[in-house]
């Protein structure tokens, strides 16, 4: 690893101040859990390497999980392990727990943070699809204060986000109207442990109990486009439609058209397209299962 200077931030504001101080004159990176950054820097070339690293791992104000007026707020520094252990998240969003569980292994999840995972903005980012399917917003702090945007817009392209060099991702917010919205995350990798996603999919929708139709359906796809995307034609197709296996299968077929998967040494585009169809259907089925379990007395008792 190339030599660099480390400056430690006490809290989010201090981190932003440090960014403001160093970004004009140096190449700066932020380190939280470090699981992505350090792995990247170990084999990085000189041009890629930072001069200064801002360490936010002790910014405790970024490590909270709370239901606020705006919805479920998850601090950027919350680790994947903490997500998995959070009673609020386990109750409302088991799909987020499932997604966190597929990231790396225990050691990675103990260090790796939700914010860190999202800012990598790799197309296969495992935290992405579920949060996008839940219309999550992100809060970004900069010298001029906070700004908020949908997570889907925070992702700009492969390894590119809407963050400016002097800004910090501080919070992920699932809006109040989506609290408890049934969702399901599925990931297809090349093995079970420590897998990278060939395709990952999250589906979420409300069930109109009277009509048994899809309400506010969301399908988010990862690893099959430059960034995590909404499968918009699948979503449009499902809106207001009667819940049925055929509809879910058709949504899967439509989702394929929303994606632009590439062929690489891990899988062909053709196979990825097939997986999108299958996983989208299965994710919709999974989300419906979540809803049904909540309806049954046994499910409620749990």
């Amino acid at each position: 690893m190339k030599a660099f200077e480390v400056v430690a931030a006490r809290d989010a504001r201090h981190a932003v101040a440090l960014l403001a101080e160093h970004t004009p004159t140096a190449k700066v990176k932020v380190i939280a859990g470090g699981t992505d950054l350090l792995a990247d820097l170990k084999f990085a070339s000189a041009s890629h390497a930072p001069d200064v690293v801002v360490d936010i791992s002790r910014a405790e104000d970024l490590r909270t999980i709370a239901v606020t007026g705006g919805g479920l707020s998850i601090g950027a520094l919350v680790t994947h392990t903490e997500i998995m252990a959070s009673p609020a998240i386990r109750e409302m969003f088991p799909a987020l727990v499932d997604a966190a569980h597929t990231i790396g292994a225990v050691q990675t999840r103990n260090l790796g943070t939700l914010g860190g995972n999202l800012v990598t903005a790799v197309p296969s980012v495992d935290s992405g699809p579920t949060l996008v399917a839940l219309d999550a917003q992100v809060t970004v702090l900069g010298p001029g204060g906070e700004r908020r945007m949908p997570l889907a817009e925070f992702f700009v392209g492969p390894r590119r986000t809407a963050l400016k060099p002097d800004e910090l991702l501080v919070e992920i917010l699932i809006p109040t109207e989506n609290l408890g919205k049934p969702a399901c995350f599925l990931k297809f990798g090349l093995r079970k442990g420590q897998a990278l996603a060939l395709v990952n999919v999250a589906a979420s929708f409300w069930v109109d109990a009277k009509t048994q139709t899809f309400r506010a359906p969301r399908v988010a796809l990862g690893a099959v486009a430059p960034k995590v995307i909404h499968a918009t034609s699948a979503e449009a197709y499902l809106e207001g439609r009667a819940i049925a296996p055929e509809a879910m299968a058709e949504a899967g077929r439509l989702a394929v058209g929303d994606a632009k998967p590439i062929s690489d040494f891990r899988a062909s585009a053709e196979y990825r397209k097939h997986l999108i169809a299958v996983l989208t259907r299965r994710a919709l089925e999974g989300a419906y299962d979540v809803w049904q379990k909540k309806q049954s007395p046994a499910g409620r008792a749990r």
Partner: protein
Amino acid sequence: MDKKSAVIEKQARLQEVEALLKAPAAAPLAPLPREVLVPEARQQTPAVRQRATRPDGRLHGLGQTKYIDDYYLPGMLYAKIKRAGIASARILRIDTSEALKMPGVMAVITGKDVPCNSFGPSLKDQPVLADERVFHAGDGVAAVAAVTEQIAAEALEKITVEYEPIRPVLDPLESLQLETPGLHAPNPNIYGHKVIRKGDVEKGFAQSYRIFEGSYRTQMVEHVPLEPHASVATWDANGRVTIYSTLGRITLGRADISRTIGVPMSRVRVIATVVGGNFGGKNEITTEPVLALLAKKTGRPVKCTFTRPEEFLASTTRHPLVMDYKTGVTKEGKILARQIRLVLDGGAYCSWSETTLGKACILSAGPYQIDNLYAEAFVVYTNKTMTGAMRGFGAPQVCFAYESQMDDMAKALGIDPLQIRLTNALREGSLSPTSQKLHSVVVRETLLQAAQRFGWNEDGGGNGAQS
């Protein structure tokens, strides 16, 4: 910068980096449990058949096993190898001058500095450091010794190599074609060939009820020992070099080191301690001669530990095979004749290809009595990571082929997969493909014992999972 101030700057930097390297003042905080019972199975007689625990296992569990990378000798330097990064090329020029100027860099060597720049267990076709020709992208072309690993790694980027690219040949079947130019001139592309002929296959095929043909391929895989290759070389004042190494074959290793660095065997000591996984991948030297030369040049101990990428790029791998099988059987599934052609992708260098070729060819018939057999195997060069010894030496590859075909034949003939194997299995006193009379043969016993675990009976009962 004039020479004097350059020296001063270098010394200042050296003092700085050496300050980082000073040995820890305190001993490690590793308690040695004072009273630990020796497990009973280790104290029993008779000793054989006991589930005796491993004395090394206890040290592993305590974190006290010293692997090569755990050796930190006083004043030790770190070496790094510059990898070609191009699969096939002529080397026109290597410029190491910028690297040598870096503070903290103590020595740089290239293939020209290696007294005898070739080695290999059967063909001596592999250079210690490539100096004229690059045969695969993982070839080393220069080596640096520096006071820290970081400086050594940065120095590699300062070494420039000019290449004249040559079109690489990557497909073994292409290499097999005679018109393909010699990859490894003057050696021919096909650098090993073997034939096993027993009985008369044509006659056997003529008598067969059905003939099955199949073609199978396997991939290149890595051993992935958890411990990367590592060695440390250190000289004494009598001109003896001691090399701590992850070698699994120290006797052969010493011979290769002695030959390549031009020092008598009596002055080369190789110590292997405990190796953190071998699987055939640590059977020959890698950086040992380079470290010996760097240590000699600098007068200090030198260590090199492969990065994980180097494990893939610069150590041996498993031979990919292309396998063609033609098998004639009776209506009852008895094999009457089998003809096999194997093409082994040898990668850039021979390494243990001859052994792999031999084993693959002899074993390719499977554990079956076959009176009429013709097996022919070739190994060819390609411009890929060299293949060599790996757990099974060709056996997993041919087993994949012969056992896949066995099931296809069973299915086509309507015979249970267990039954067709029992019908053909070698027995005590059977003649092997090389007409060796076999003893203590238990194929049948293993078949029945494994099948019993699944309630799978000799008559085909219990195998309810047929699709």
